[in-house]
């Protein structure tokens, strides 16, 4: 399954809820304000590193760039463009959007 998360992890529990229900081996794509979770050295980066051991973490590049995070993305997070987003949807049987 592919999960998408579009909320900042700091003022909102959406990312935490997604990670709670994301099965080992599934993919999590951070989009829109969700990409803030991809940054290094934040209050949630340890949590994300931990999550990256069981799920694959992606972040939508145009959203990363819009928020000025292009030089702050943590190791282990793969950047994809909209075409890569489409490919991720194709490669997984279902998509769950955590809003």
């Amino acid at each position, binding site marked *: 399954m592919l999960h998408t998360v*579009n909320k900042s992890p700091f003022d909102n529990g959406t990312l935490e809820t997604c990670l709670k229900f994301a099965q080992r081996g599934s993919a999590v794509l951070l989009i*829109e*304000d969700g990409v803030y979770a991809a940054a290094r050295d934040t209050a949630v980066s340890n949590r994300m590193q931990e999550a990256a051991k069981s799920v694959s973490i992606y972040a939508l590049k145009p959203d990363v760039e819009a928020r000025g995070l292009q030089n702050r993305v943590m190791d282990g997070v793969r950047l994809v463009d909209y075409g890569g987003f*489409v*490919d991720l949807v194709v490669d997984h049987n279902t998509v769950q*959007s955590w809003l």
Partner: protein
Amino acid sequence: MKFGILVNEGPYTHEASDTAYQFVKAALMKGHEIYRVFFYHDGVNNGTRLTVPPQDDRNIVKRWSDLAALHKLDLVVCVAAAQRRGLIDASEAKRHGKDADNIAPGFRISGLGQLIEAGIQADRLVVFGG
């Protein structure tokens, strides 16, 4: 592959409509089929032709209309959600005694069954929300 798309937020207010548009464009460029784009909740507001966005900003409604014309996309606005929010076409206007309508070119109003049908017919349904 056949995609169904659900857009749940209005233009400009949330990024959902932008992301959905860019996703649809990228999917088409990769040769995929867009079975339907369904607009629900505040997403129905993507279908009004009365927006006048700032000159230096994207025109979200026109972008959808143009893409629909180019690729024969089926853009469906949920009738129940639209009625609550004041998005109507000429026949709805007549039926409800309204003196104007505001639907944009390329959009049509229909029922929620069109969303379920998209879920059944498409290989993937992708939800964009707020």
